């Protein structure tokens, strides 16, 4: 894994995984197979991995957990919830309304794929799904912002609420961009970092714009 050669692991990340040494008897009773465990354990293990990654995004520091054990469950959950919350926008005619569910979905996934391809074409050493994982998980602050916006809009829809929403969305946009840059920037060649960071900035800007311009009917 050439991209992980200079990643420092801070002390409070537990090292997990199993080391099975194939010496001794080969009898199947001694192998621990995940087929035999209760279903609750299987689900809880994945849920805990997703939750741990959420924590890593909210407090971004240099960690390899997001990169090493990538999964796409978290991004899927975030994308679906964001797309669902963006529904119910005002639409006098179909042409003037906010983005539909499919549009949000396509923008997030297609945008993440294009940014990943861009960083790989520029010579990045990160793998395709690791990058998708990081970009998807870093949508979490913006999903929180969407939740806050919807709650604020329930209370009032005037200028004060707009200013609150603007501040919240702006702060979360900065958080998302900084978090994803912190995870992704190290795997890029040093003289092309800005070329890789700019599309990430544009991607989160578009999502923030969609969140900010959401107006309920």
């Amino acid at each position, binding site marked *: 894994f050439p991209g992980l050669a200079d990643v420092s692991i801070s002390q409070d990340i537990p090292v997990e995984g199993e080391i099975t040494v194939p010496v001794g008897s080969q009898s199947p009773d001694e192998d621990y197979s995940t087929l035999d465990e209760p279903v609750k354990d299987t689900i809880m293990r994945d849920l805990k991995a997703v939750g741990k990654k959420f924590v890593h995004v909210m407090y971004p520091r240099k960690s390899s957990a997001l990169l090493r054990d990538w999964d796409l469950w978290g991004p899927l959950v975030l994308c679906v919830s964001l797309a669902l919350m963006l529904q119910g926008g005002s639409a006098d005619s179909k042409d003037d309304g906010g983005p539909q569910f499919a549009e949000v979905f396509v923008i997030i996934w297609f945008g993440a794929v294009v940014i990943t391809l861009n960083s790989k074409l520029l010579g990045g050493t990160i793998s395709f799904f690791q990058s998708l994982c990081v970009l998807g998980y870093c949508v979490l602050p913006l999903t929180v912002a969407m939740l806050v916006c919807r709650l604020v809009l329930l209370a009032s829809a005037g200028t004060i609420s707009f200013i609150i929403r603007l501040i919240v969305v702006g702060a979360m946009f900065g958080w998302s961009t900084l978090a994803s840059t912190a995870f992704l920037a190290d795997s890029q060649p040093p*003289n092309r970092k800005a*070329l890789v960071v700019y599309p990430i900035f544009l991607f989160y800007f578009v999502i923030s*714009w969609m969140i900010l311009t959401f*107006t309920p009917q």
Partner: protein
Amino acid sequence: FAEFDDAANLLAANPDATTISIDEPVEIPKNQHSRLQEPGREEDDELLGTDDSDKTELLAGQKKSAPFWTFEYYQTFFDVDTYQVLDRIKGSVFPVPGKNFVRLYIRSNPDLYGPFWICATLVFTIAVSGNLSNFFIHLGKPTYHYVPEFRKVSIAATTIYAYAWLVPLALWGFLMWRNSKVMNIVSYSFLEIVCVYGYSLFIYIPTAILWIIPQNVVRWVLVVFSLCLSGSVLVMTFWPAVRDDNRRIAVATVATILLLHALLAVGCLAYFFDAPELDIPVPIIPAHNGTTVVTKSH
């Protein structure tokens, strides 16, 4: 032994120079002579830029040798550093008279990064600025309800990407066809034309942001200004390519290039940005049957 190093370097740069390696007093005039020669040689290379097409095309052929189904083939189109992209953007905004954008900045290393991301930025800038501008124009009206107008993003994307890819394709095909008829035409590769068009769209990004200002005069001044800048870059790129051709065809080609560029700007302004309200006091005209009719002019 520094003098021997200098002599070796100068010899590598100037292989035709005769060398006398024994006496120091004889080497010194040779050093001065070669140093005087080098700036002159560089100037010739710049002025002869348009005639270097054979060499640069050979070099371009040597670079992209990976087969097109491998990932490395496409990586050759992204072989640019940050400062190179910034230089190319600067070159598209400040046209230097007499210098060719392709020869000066691209130098047989066309990239797809600039065109693609400039087009993407332009799409979202136009959509967001249009939305903001409409919001500010209609702000005071009691019947106005804000809409995000998200459909316009897809329309903007289709328009701008079609312009940035189909017009270079047509232009490249046209130049190839004329090249087969008239021998001396300099022909650019398809990617170089895409590159020029992509970078020439950069000026429309700040223009679109400034179009939020709801004054017609300001908007049209911006259109003319940005058209002059990026249009001149396009003209200076393509005029050397067609000037050896039939006079009328050359002029018609350059005129079409400029016309399409202008059409893009004017079309985006007309479609995405509503006309600003004029501040004329509302006259009250008594109608025939005695009721007053209030008219408002846009």
